[in-house]
């Protein structure tokens, strides 16, 4: 498994690492039960801070994507199989939506902005809906 991070994009390094591991799991490059590199070898290979690797692993554990077993390392969770299938289904939905948007003549940037705006509205709607104003 090869990971590659870019320290000077402004994106936090632990988020970059999480994203790449998540992607590897979603595409099946990493399968349920697979072992991830140790914190030390991940830090040394990518020349990054070991505490940052720890942070990424902890957050992924929190998301249920990996399991940290004391003394033996980090493993891809057994439950990610079903998650990968859901992602696969979602992918086809996104693909057909993208095709339709492209047919309308929208550029990539326009599509991205639309998605981001809608996501933000969605988030704001959820936040205010829960407050019972």
């Amino acid at each position, binding site marked *: 498994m090869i990971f590659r991070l870019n320290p*000077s*994009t402004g994106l936090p390094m632990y988020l970059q690492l999480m994203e790449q591991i998540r992607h590897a799991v979603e595409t099946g490059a990493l399968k349920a039960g697979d072992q991830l590199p140790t914190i030390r070898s991940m830090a040394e290979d990518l020349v*990054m*801070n070991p505490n940052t690797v720890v942070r990424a692993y902890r957050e992924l554990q929190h998301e249920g994507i990996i399991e940290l077993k004391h003394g033996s390392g980090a493993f891809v969770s057994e439950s990610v199989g079903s998650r990968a299938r859901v992602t696969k289904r979602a992918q086809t939905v996104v693909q057909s939506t993208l095709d339709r948007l492209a047919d309308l003549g929208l550029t990539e940037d326009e599509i991205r902005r639309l998605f981001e705006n809608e996501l933000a509205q969605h988030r704001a709607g959820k936040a205010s809906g829960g407050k019972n104003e």
Partner: protein
Amino acid sequence: MSDWVIQARGLQKSFKGQPALTGLNLEVPAGSIFGFLGRNGAGKTTTIRLLMGFLKPDGGDARVFGMPAGDSAAGIEIRRRLGFVTEDKDLYPYMTVEQIIRFTRSFFPTWRVDSEKRYLKLFDLPPSRKISDLSKGMRSKLMLLLGISHGAELLILDEPTEGLDPVAVDDMLRELVSISATGGTTIFFSSHQLEEVEQIADRVCIIDHGAAVVTGSLDDLKTQYQRLRVVLGAELRTPVQWGDGAEHVRQDGRTVDILASRNVEAIINQARSLPGASVERFPVTLKEIFLEHVRSN
């Protein structure tokens, strides 16, 4: 022992009436790789000399391993437990590599021969060559070898990559990561090379005119700082009073550029409430954070 390996409060120091440090606060947690950033003359080296006990502060307090750095008895104990790699690399120039290693070893009962042998080979240091005949990069590596091999709990490095070529810089960064990952050694290094700090540090402090202007976890800073680009439906008649955290706002016609240092979500909501507004957010690099704070000072 406290969790802070280095702790400074309100540190002040002047030279001939010229202030070098003007109330510096610094907290370096155990096991971190801590990047100490600033322009030339910002006070980095003065801070390190105070931590090493080479200088006494005019005011404030500096502690290393919880002990007062300015105290001469504590200073001996502090220097026994740390390794120091300095910019001026003032080793004894007439000694050979082998002689300086033997000389240094005699002061430290905790000396690790395995580490000495490993780094001598890894760094490709010629044992019989005189220190005066070593390149800058080799001298840095030799100092690093001495620091690591005496089993230091803390490495203080003053601009360790200054004057090194890109390959030597990469070697140095790899070694620092490896030392941190293997033994949990705390690493405190000063630099004005933002890319290398961004690559290996988990915590940073930006110092300017003798005081800390930004400090914290690097990933947290990158989460808090965002650049927002707002495109409005129509040009505004009256300027917007942006909320707390909008550090730098530029407006040109219908577009507004905002550098936010915190409360990003609140500022985005504020922007979205303007008629016809669309908002894009961009990540902010350490360089942008650095320039924003050092320039505005």
